[in-house]
C-alpha cells in the first residue's frame, strides 16, 4: 500500500492535534508561571508571557515551606517506593514461580486494594495514626503509600516475571544453588529492568497522591508538595497566589517529564503488561 502525500498530511494533522490536546494545558501553566503578577488577569490568558520573569519562582523558593514540602515529597515517595518494590518483588516471584495454596486469594486481595476507595481509609487512619503518634510524620504517609502501591507493583512485576527465561534458574539450582540463591544471584539481575519500571510507576503514584497528604498531615512537617501547593495563601484569604501556585506546579512536574522522556517505552510496557495477556 503506497502512502500518498495526502494521507501523510492527514496523519500529520491528526498527530499534531493529539499532541496539542495533550500538551497545551501543560504548556499554558508553564507560561502562567513565568508571567509577572501584574500581567496575570490582564493579558486575557495569553499562552506567551508579555514579560518573562522568574519572580514567581523566586517567591516559592524564598520561603522554607515549599522547599520543605519538596524534601518531604521526595523522601516519602522514595522510601515508600523502595519498600513497596522489595515486598512486591518477593511476592511476585512467589506468584509466578512457586506452587502454593492461597495464590488466588493473594491476587484477589491485591486487586481489591487496587480498587479500594481511599476515602474509606482516611477517617480510620486519621484516628489510628493520632492514637499511635505517627499522624503528621513521614511514616504516617509512607505506610498508606506502600500499601496502595503494592497491588500495582505486584501486578506489573508478576507480568514481567512471566517473561523471564527461568531455565537459567534451573541451571543455577543444578549447580547447587539454593532456591533463594537462585533468586538473588541469577533472577534478580535479570529482573532489574522490570523492577526499574515498577519503581518509576510506583514513584509517580506516590508523588501524585493528594487525599492522604492533606488528611494525614496538619503542619509543614510532613506535608508533601501537592498538599502544600493547595494550601498556599495569597495576600488575602480570598485571593489565590496564582503565580506561585503555577511555579510550584511546574517544579513538581519536572520529575514526571524527565521520567516520561527517558523511560517512555518502559512506562508504557509497565502500564499495559498483564492487562492484555489473558
Amino acid at each position: 500500500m503506497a502512502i500518498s502525500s495526502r494521507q501523510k498530511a492527514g496523519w500529520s494533522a491528526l498527530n499534531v492535534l493529539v499532541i496539542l490536546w495533550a500538551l497545551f494545558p501543560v504548556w499554558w501553566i508553564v507560561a502562567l508561571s513565568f508571567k509577572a503578577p501584574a500581567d496575570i488577569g490582564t493579558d486575557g490568558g495569553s499562552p506567551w508571557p508579555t514579560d518573562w520573569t522568574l519572580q514567581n519562582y523566586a517567591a516559592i523558593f524564598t520561603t522554607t515551606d515549599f522547599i520543605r514540602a519538596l524534601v518531604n515529597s521526595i523522601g516519602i515517595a522514595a522510601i515508600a517506593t523502595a519498600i513497596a518494590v522489595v515486598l512486591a518483588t518477593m511476592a511476585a516471584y512467589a506468584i509466578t514461580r512457586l506452587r502454593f495454596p492461597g495464590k488466588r486469594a493473594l491476587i484477589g486481595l491485591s486487586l481489591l486494594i487496587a480498587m479500594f476507595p481511599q476515602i474509606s481509609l482516611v477517617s480510620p487512619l486519621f484516628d489510628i495514626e493520632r492514637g499511635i503518634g505517627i499522624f503528621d510524620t513521614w511514616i504516617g504517609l509512607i505506610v498508606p503509600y506502600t500499601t496502595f502501591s503494592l497491588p500495582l507493583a505486584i501486578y506489573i512485576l508478576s507480568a514481567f516475571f512471566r517473561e523471564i527465561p527461568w531455565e537459567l534458574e534451573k541451571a543455577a539450582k543444578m549447580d547447587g544453588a539454593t532456591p533463594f540463591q537462585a533468586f538473588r544471584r541469577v533472577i534478580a539481575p535479570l529482573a532489574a529492568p522490570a523492577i526499574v519500571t515498577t519503581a518509576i510507576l510506583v514513584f509517580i503514584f506516590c508523588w501524585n497522591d493528594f487525599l492522604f497528604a492533606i488528611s494525614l498531615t496538619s503542619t509543614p512537617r510532613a506535608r508533601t508538595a501537592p498538599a502544600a501547593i493547595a494550601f498556599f495563601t495569597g495576600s488575602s484569604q480570598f485571593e489565590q497566589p496564582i503565580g506561585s501556585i503555577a511555579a510550584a506546579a511546574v517544579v513538581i512536574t519536572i520529575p514526571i517529564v524527565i521520567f516520561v522522556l527517558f523511560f517512555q517505552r518502559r512506562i508504557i510496557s509497565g502500564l499495559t503488561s498483564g492487562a492484555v495477556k489473558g
Partner: protein
Amino acid sequence: MSPGPEVRDVTRDAASAGAPPSSPDVTEGSTDPLQRRRSDAARAERRLGWALCAPAVIVMLAVTAYPIGYAVYLSLRRSDLRFPDAARFIGLDNYVTVLTSAYWWDALAVTALITIASVAIELVLGMTLALVMHRTIWGRGTVRTAILVPYGLVTVVAAFSWEYAWTPDIGYLAALLPAGSAPLTETWQAIGLIILAEVWKTTPFMALLLLAGLALVPEELLQAAKIDGASAWKRFTKVTLPLMMPAVLVALLFRTLDAFRVFDSIYIMTGGSQGTGSVSILGYNNLFTALNLGVGSAISVLVFICAAIIAFSFIKLFGTAAPGSALDGGN
C-alpha cells in the same frame, strides 16, 4: 529483607531434595522415598511461597482490613472530635443520619454522573486515540510520549491548570466565553468541566491499554475480512473489538473504580461548592470541617460498599475475563 531462620532451613531442604538421585538412600525399584522427597520439596516450595508473600500480605491487610474494620466500629459510635467525652455506642444512628440526608444522595448522584460520563467519554476518545496511534504512518513515538505527560502529571497540577484556564480574566478558555461568565461557579457547568479535566488526565491511560489490546489483533484477519468485502466499521466491530474485549474490560473496570473515588480535581477546581462534591469530598468534609468522626466513618463504610458493589458486578458480568485471571497459573 532477609528471611527468618526457619525459611533458610526450608530452602536447604529444598536444595537437598533437588539433589541428583545418586544419594545413597535411593534404591533401585523403590519409589517410596522418592515420593516422600517430592512431597518434601512441594512442602518446602509452599513454605517459601508463603514466606515471600507474607510481608506484602501483612502490610496490605494491616493497612486496609484492620482500618476498615475500625471504621465500622467508629461508624457505630457517636464520635465528635469537638466533644470527645460524649463518645458512645449509638448503633446505626450515623447511617440513618447519612442515608436520610440530601447531601449524601446529591454527592452520590454527582459521583455517579462524573463516573459514568467520564468513563464513557474516555472509552470512545481512548479508542479513537488508540486507533490513531496504531494506524499512524509516522510520529507514533512522539504521540505516545506526549500523551504520557497528562497521565503522569500530578492531578493537583492538572486541576489547577484547568481551574485557571476557566477563571475569568486569567484563563485562555474563559477568554473564549461571553463576558461575565464564570463556569466554575455554576453547578452543571462546573460538573462538566470537572468531567473534562478527568477525561483529559486519564484518557491516555485508557488509550495505552487499548493500544496494547489492538496490537493483539492479527493483521491477516483484518486483511481477510477486507477481501471478503467488510467495511472499515464492520471490521472494527466484528473483528477488532471482540478480539480486544479483555483489554477493554480491564480498562473499564480500573477506570470506573478510579473515577468513583474522584477527589483531587473537585477539591482544587470547586472545593465541592455549588453541589459539585463527590462522596469522597463529602467524607473528607465531614471529617475535617465538621470534625465528626462517627458520621465521616459511616460515609467511609458506605463508599466502600458502593465500590465493592461496582467491582462485584464487573466480575460477575465478565467472569473469567476479569483481571487477575491473567496472573494466575504461572506454573
